[in-house]
């Protein structure tokens, strides 16, 4: 920690753990104790306070207190979450919308699985495309074998759907027939009775005295009322029949589910065979090499007329060869790739924002005149909606890169970003090309603009509220203005600077999703929008998946910032275990 403020060689952190040095005997127990202290410290720094009672319980420290804390910090929140899932699962099917009922937790989970399956299949295909030799053949062989299985499975699934349909149809028929008969009987009876009633009123018109004409109108109204009530009954009967017709039996739903998943896998396997087979890089390369060889052989002994033709074709094939060598499988954007891109965008924007906000914040903190000058801008620009900023940046960035495909700046940026990502563990295998384009830049700038205010204001506050006593120390020591800034002002402002940065990153993440959605810059925002636009049956569930994906990533980002914040806060609870 001290490295933040002081050169490394002066810090001997390993010797500084207080209670342990006393027990220099270094018995087994003291090592265990030291480990416990380290654990508790780590928990404290990462603000994962709910783990503390678990650690203490493992060390047998006041078991009753710890159990109570575990109940309070772990069990109750879990129960609350489970309750939430329960309420959600029960109410969701009843909340019907234009896009179908609200997805239940299990449907959302299925959505997540579908998203990940899609990703894994795309990864498999792109690996298959690049595979060579026996490895490639093994892929083809395995896939072919699998395809046979799948064909059988598909037949079974189709049959199962057919029987389920039939059975459902029969079942519905059995339930509907009596209802239909009932309805028919009711309707015919209704017709007869209606006629009867009208006839009765008609008869009244002759028997009744002429002076009481109003009674006829009254009687007719009564009949009309009665008819209406009868028709309502009919409608209700029809509605319940319709409900039965619309019902989908669980068996049929399961069969359909199986059918689609088998069909999807079959389609994938077929594609895999192609990609690893006839359309694989190796096969294409071999074909080209063979064709070049052939042409070359012919060229050696060709007459001048065809020699030109052959040379031309050789040159063309050579050029294609180069392209094919470098080619990869054209993978669509999948969720993990989009997550990587979103995180890259948010950090790009965040860092741009921080790079602007901290210097300005320091100036504001140091000079109240400057602060007074800047305040109107903060007040004016801070409340502006990210959407407005995005549109502005969209136009500006579009103007700066009128032809993105040939822009050298973008190529350099892409090269840098891709080199960094390709050596990042895990990420490197997911993303081939992060594709930094104007939409990316506009989204990042929007994030920067919306998020920089929190850092700026907090930095200014931190710098301005440097303890007067510390300033006095600096004055007595006659520190130069630069030393005063670096050795006194910045270290004491750092906790607030990081608090501001934490807020900024949170705002940035929230803004980013909207910006990506609007700029249709590949990322979580675009993924969500694509799901909304394509309107599949599971789209709604997939959109709900995004709630959790975005939420969890936001939470992790926040945790990371908390750790930084705690590491730089000197009077916080960091060191007091």
């Amino acid at each position, binding site marked *: 920690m*001290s490295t*933040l*403020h*002081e050169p490394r060689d*002066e*810090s*001997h*952190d390993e*010797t*500084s753990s*207080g209670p342990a040095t006393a027990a220099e005997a270094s018995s087994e127990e003291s090592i265990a104790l030291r480990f416990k202290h380290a654990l508790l410290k780590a928990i404290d720094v990462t603000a994962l306070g709910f783990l503390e009672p678990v650690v203490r319980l493992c060390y047998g420290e006041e078991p009753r207190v710890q159990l109570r804390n575990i109940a309070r910090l772990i069990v109750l929140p879990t129960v609350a979450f489970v309750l939430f899932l329960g309420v959600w699962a029960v109410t969701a099917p009843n909340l019907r919308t234009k896009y179908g009922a609200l997805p239940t937790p299990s449907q959302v989970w299925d959505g997540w699985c579908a998203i990940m399956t899609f990703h894994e299949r795309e990864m498999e295909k792109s690996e298959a495309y690049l595979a060579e030799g026996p490895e490639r053949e093994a892929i083809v062989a395995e896939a072919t074998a699998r395809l046979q299985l799948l064909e059988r499975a598909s037949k079974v699934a189709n049959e199962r759907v057919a029987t389920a349909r039939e059975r459902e149809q029969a079942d519905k028929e059995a339930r509907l027939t009596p209802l239909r008969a009932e309805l028919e009987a009711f309707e015919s009876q209704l017709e007869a009775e209606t006629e009867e009633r009208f006839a009765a009123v008609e008869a009244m018109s002759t028997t009744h005295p002429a002076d009481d004409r109003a009674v006829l109108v009254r009687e007719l109204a009564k009949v009309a009322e009665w008819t209406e009530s009868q028709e309502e009954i009919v409608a209700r009967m029809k509605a319940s029949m319709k409900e039965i017709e619309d019902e989908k039996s669980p068996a049929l739903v399961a069969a359909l589910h199986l059918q689609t998943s088998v069909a999807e896998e079959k389609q994938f396997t077929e594609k895999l065979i192609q990609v690893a087979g006839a359309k694989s890089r190796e096969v294409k390369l071999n074909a080209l090499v063979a064709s070049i060889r052939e042409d070359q052989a012919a060229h050696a002994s060709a007459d001048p007329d065809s020699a030109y033709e052959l040379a031309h074709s050789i040159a063309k094939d050579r050029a294609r060869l180069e392209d094919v060598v470098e080619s990869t499988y054209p993978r669509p954007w999948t969720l993990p790739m989009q997550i990587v891109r979103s995180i890259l965008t948010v950090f790009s924007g965040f860092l741009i924002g921080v790079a602007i906000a901290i210097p300005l914040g320091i100036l504001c903190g140091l000079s109240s005149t400057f602060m007074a000058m800047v305040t109107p801008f903060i007040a004016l620009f801070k409340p502006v909606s990210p959407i407005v900023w995005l549109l502005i940046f969209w136009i500006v960035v579009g103007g700066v890169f009128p032809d993105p495909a040939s822009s050298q700046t973008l190529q350099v940026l892409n090269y840098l970003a891709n080199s960094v990502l390709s050596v990042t563990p895990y990420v490197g295998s997911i993303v081939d090309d992060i594709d930094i384009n104007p939409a990316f830049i506009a989204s990042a700038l929007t994030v920067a603009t919306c998020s920089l205010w929190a850092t700026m204001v907090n930095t200014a506050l931190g710098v301005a509220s440097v*303890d007067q*006593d*510390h300033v*006095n*120390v600096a*004055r*007595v*020591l*006659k*520190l130069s203005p630069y*030393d005063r800034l670096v*050795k*006194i002002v910045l*270290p*004491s402002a*750092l906790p607030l600077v990081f608090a501001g940065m934490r807020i900024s990153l949170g705002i940035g993440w929230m803004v980013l999703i909207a910006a990506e959605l609007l700029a249709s810059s590949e990322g979580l925002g675009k993924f969500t929008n694509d799901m909304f636009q394509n309107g599949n049956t599971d789209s709604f569930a997939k959109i709900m998946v995004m709630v959790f994906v975005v939420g969890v990533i936001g939470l992790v980002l926040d945790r990371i910032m908390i750790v930084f914040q705690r590491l*730089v806060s*000197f*009077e916080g609870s960091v*060191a*007091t275990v």
Partner: protein
Amino acid sequence: MSFLELSHVDKGFGPAADRYEVLDDVNLSIDRNEFVAVIGFSGSGKSTLVSLLAGLLQPDAGEVRMNGEVVTEPGPERGVVFQNYSLLPWLTVASNVELAVKQVFPEMSRTERREHVQHFVDLVSLSGAEHKRPHELSGGMRQRVSLARTLSMRPDLLLLDEPLSALDALTRATLQDELVRLWLEDRRTVVMITNDVDEAVLLADRIVPLTPGPNATLGPDFVVDLERPRDRTTLNYDPAFVRLRNRITNYLVDVNAESRQLRVDRAVQLPDVVPADLTTV
């Protein structure tokens, strides 16, 4: 000409309309290598006096002169041990001291500097706590770090603002002895603020009382002509010590009573009203 001089120094705080005059016409001259204790009540302006001597504050009227030159700004030749320690919380004990050493002795090599720092850390018996941060230390330990930091600057004038007030009696006695030893070793001029008469008599060559504020000023000097080294165990039986201590204590008690008197006289006359007893209505 004396080493350090205050002549007709006034100091107040606040806007002109509502000014709080802390010090009024303070005159003091201190010789080189003299150990002067300033004793006074809480809030009388002792810390303000230290700030003036250090150059952290400028007097409203009058002058502070050191070596004949008017003090206009603070500097490391006038080391201050602040009342509230003023340690930098993000630095370890050693780094706090080192910050000062680096600034005052830029020509030192790294090893020299480290030894220098260690010397002063050891001096205030904080060996072993070098790598702790201020918030991990007790109040007394912090005070000692502050003392080590200031001593390490080897200032010509040492300004101590109640440097031992947060210590328990035992540690306090040790540090008092330590202070005297240090001072005897390389005599430098010391102005120590204290609120403990015994401490003042034990350490100082001369004691200057500060009258209670507002408009505090320095009272008559008490010269301590007890022989050095003074032994705290036998001192209590020394009639000269007892006499001097009683004189100072009596003076302080009198001057305090007087100021109370003044304050009462100035108090607003309250109207003679008795609150009505509403419960009986």
